[in-house]
């Protein structure tokens, strides 16, 4: 049993996590393109951004590292998780909030003009 878990874990560490994150990314993009509903498109956009953020964070993981908050007596770099991806992704996460806000505002405006947020109906009304 432990053997299987070990192997699985090795697989995940080697490539499995990356694979799952990229699949999440692909599902997000697919949703953005294929969903007919504009609200769902915005949600899928958020999903895609979460997957990218996670993808970056995996670069910073360290075996046996602790949170990147400096303790009194430990100064060696091995003891802490890499803080750079965290800082970058804080920026990216805020940008994603901004994009979501603008997207929702646009959504409500579209609803005002066309009376619907389904893509098919809008294209039918000459929204192209």
């Amino acid at each position, binding site marked *: 049993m432990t053997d299987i878990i070990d192997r699985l874990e090795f697989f995940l560490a080697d490539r499995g996590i990356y694979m799952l994150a990229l699949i999440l990314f692909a599902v997000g993009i697919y949703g953005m393109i294929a969903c007919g509903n504009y609200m769902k498109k915005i949600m899928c956009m*958020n999903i895609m951004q979460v997957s990218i953020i*996670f993808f970056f964070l995996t670069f910073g993981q360290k075996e046996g590292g602790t949170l990147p908050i400096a303790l009194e007596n430990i100064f060696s770099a091995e003891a802490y998780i890499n803080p750079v991806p965290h800082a970058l992704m804080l920026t990216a*996460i805020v940008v994603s909030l901004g994009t979501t806000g603008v997207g929702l505002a646009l*959504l409500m405006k579209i609803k005002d003009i066309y009376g619907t947020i389904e893509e098919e109906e809008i294209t039918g009304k000459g929204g192209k």
Partner: protein
Amino acid sequence: MPILLLEGLLLLAMISIAIAIIFGKNLLAATIIYCGFSFSAMLLYTIVGAADVAFTEAIIGTISTVYFIIAIKSIKNRGEHDEKK
């Protein structure tokens, strides 16, 4: 300690939530599920060790869910007004 296993499971859950959002019929339900999505994203970030990012994601998840619900509310109201006219 199978941290990576936990990560993998959470990622699988997130993928299935994403698929549920794509195929769901009800927008409100999708929003609630999306709330779950951002919660599991927060858990994931915590496991990875990015506590700051997890903190931010928790707050942003809340706020964007509120935004989504208000937007749905407003869209539905509009529809009803139009029908009355």
